[in-house]
């Protein structure tokens, strides 16, 4: 068994998954037809951000059944860390036109920011949630809200209460024309990064020893402990991954929108949480799907002149899904199959 742990394509890519893959492909075609190529790129971009944040919500819920309300603010901290790295130590102002240099900066930016954010996630879990792990369910929930305020206020103390502009290292004029739309390389990059991280996450959870520990802890914490799984390590690592993904979302946000503000995690976190519930909280594939669904609803509302109603549309769809599928689009299933 040990030798088979190298990264391979999921063995489960068999006939049973064909309907699901076909449904996703079909939805994408319908989405494309509804909003056109330009908006299609817009929705994939913002959807990728929501999806990356939603993954953290869903993983933490899956493993300790905690709705980590501070997660949106972890994402916000990610934006500020990225912004600070770019404008502080790197001292950048404008765009980087040399592709090789840009690649180096981006790789470094993602590595450093995601490591810092992962460490922050471990820190929060260690000092805010672990002491309450066996407390009534409400206690860690309220603590999460407290952590959210703490993160907001710390960032407000450092960066002020207003939006802070960041250097936009991706030149916005780098675009290419396809199907009558002008697509930014940045949009392609963001979607590619998000999809790559999601695939990596799936492989990690499904194929590694720690991933297996995570799944077993999610299924039955005590049984897993009896079987020799280090629960504290596993839960800490779940927070590490979830927060690192939120950090990636924060970087993407700064690259795309060019600013960070201390309260950006509130609405982004709310939408991402909705995405996680929509897809089936505890289910990583569902969280990613939910993120893209919400991105699409926002873009479609804007396209058809109903932006005034976009929040109504998002939460209306959430209500409908929960009425007919109380466990979300794909069901809660981190335990069995991440």
């Amino acid at each position, binding site marked *: 068994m040990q030798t088979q742990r190298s990264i391979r394509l999921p063995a489960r890519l068999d006939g049973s998954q064909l309907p699901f893959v076909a449904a996703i492909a079909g939805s994408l075609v319908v989405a494309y037809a509804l909003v056109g190529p330009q*908006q299609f790129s817009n929705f994939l971009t913002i959807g990728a951000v929501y999806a990356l944040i939603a993954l953290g919500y869903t993983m933490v819920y899956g493993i300790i059944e905690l709705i980590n309300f501070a997660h949106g603010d972890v994402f916000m901290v990610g934006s500020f860390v990225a912004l600070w790295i770019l404008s502080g130590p790197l001292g950048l102002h404008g765009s980087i036109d040399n592709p090789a240099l840009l690649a180096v900066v981006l790789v470094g930016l993602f590595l450093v920011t995601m490591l810092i954010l992962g460490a922050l996630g471990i820190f929060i879990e260690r*000092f805010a949630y672990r002491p309450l792990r066996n407390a009534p369910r409400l206690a860690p929930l309220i603590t999460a809200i407290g952590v959210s305020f703490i993160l907001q206020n710390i960032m407000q103390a450092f960066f002020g209460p207003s939006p802070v502009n960041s250097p936009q290292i991706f030149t916005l004029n780098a675009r290419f024309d396809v199907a009558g739309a002008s697509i930014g390389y940045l949009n392609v990059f963001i979607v590619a990064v998000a999809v790559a991280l999601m695939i990596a996450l799936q492989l990690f959870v499904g194929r590694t020893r720690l991933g297996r520990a995570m799944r077993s802890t999610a299924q039955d914490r005590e049984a897993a402990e009896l079987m020799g799984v280090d629960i504290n390590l596993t839960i800490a690592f779940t927070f590490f991954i979830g927060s690192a993904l939120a950090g990636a979302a924060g970087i993407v946000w700064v690259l795309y*929108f060019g600013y960070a503000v201390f309260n950006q995690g509130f609405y982004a976190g709310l939408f991402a949480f909705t995405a996680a519930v929509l897809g089936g909280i505890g289910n990583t594939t569902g969280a990613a799907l939910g993120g893209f669904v919400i991105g699409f609803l926002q873009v479609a509302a804007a396209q058809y002149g109903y*932006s005034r109603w976009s929040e109504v549309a998002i939460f209306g769809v959430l209500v409908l899904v929960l009425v007919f599928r109380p466990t979300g689009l794909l069901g809660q299933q981190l335990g069995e199959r991440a």
Partner: protein
Amino acid sequence: MQSRRIGAIAVAAVVVAGACSSAATPAPSAAPAGSAAPASAAPAGSAATGSKYVTIGVDLPLSGGEFANGDPTKKGIQLAVDQANANGGIAGYTIKLSVKDDAVNGVHNPQQGATNVQTLVADPTVIGIVGPFNSNVGAAEIPITNQAGLLQCSPANTNPGLTKPQYGALDIRKAFPNRINYIRVATTDDIQGLAGAQFAYNDLGKRRAYIVDDTETYGKGLADVFEAQFKKLGGTVVKHDGAPSSTTDYTPLLTAVQSKNPDVVYFGGVTATGGGLLRKQMAQVGMGSLAFGGGDGIVDGPGGVEGSFITVAGAAAANSFGTIAATHDIPNAQAFSQAYQKAYGAAPGAYSASAYACTQVILQALQAVAATATSPTALREAVRAYATDPTHKFNTQLGTISFDQNGDTSQHIISFYKTDMTAAGGKGDWVFVRQQDFGQSSQ
């Protein structure tokens, strides 16, 4: 257990740090104002009056992205009160300030505003309130102050629905429709929207407008007037979208409208509800060269100031215009600007003089009625009755003004501004273009 205790201490330390930082934002002025009151009462009041004081309530958005609006406005009030106290107070009274912040999570919040005025109403020494800044906050506060009969003067509210019966104001002052308690020194959006439309159509020669509002009382009201007036002039409105203040991504909206070829984008709202981000993202989708306009919600100070339109939009702020519902050429502008500069080391904001004028109105009313009132309740009512009487004229920083039967100012002047990115030492600023008196006829 040992490690658990350390954890708890660490969390507690972070909580304290967080609490301190959040308090630090609005506090700097509030603390001196509050703590100085008992101390300064002694020198201000004469021996006969002792420590007599009255309080002026202040309700403004003072944290988050609204700081750029609220802070210079609050300093206008502070300046007027400090000057009055330095001159020995008003009719034997020392003036205290009670400053409330109505911003929650960085954005003005009607419920917070309502809570704030309830606190102020309950304080018997409060004779009047200056504020709020935002119209939807006003709509939540006026029912409370109207019920209580407490004078409220807004330096910046412009939504007509707050005062004018034909826009539904009687629903807002339901308790005592004929006992006016809310006055304002800014003119209304039915005039501001008209002015914006005329400026875009006549001065800039724009014909195809795309309108976005923030779906709030002020923003949507202003945008609706702009739309009606722009069409009346002969212009085309290619689309009118509403984007709630939770919107962070405006690119889908802009993408959807690009094919309709607008030549001007008009925003109804304030910087904190999306004005700056919308302008910034216009540049990202290749619409950065289009003219951009808005009301007084985006004319909020130079670049570099926390949260101002020019700071948020950055270089994209170029080629923008905006209106202010107050006179730019105030009497004795030089003296006011110098006094403000001396006290705070910065130039006054767009509504500093208006806030100063509101405070003057309350203080002049106090001066006139102080001798007749015997109890705090009587004093509060006498100040309200004096200030809202249409026959009384007030000599203020904005000129001589009075308030009509609905509490609206007799001044109907709109000032026009454009962004100049070379101003303010290269940081960019709003520069005055001209001002126009829309008089009574336009109502």
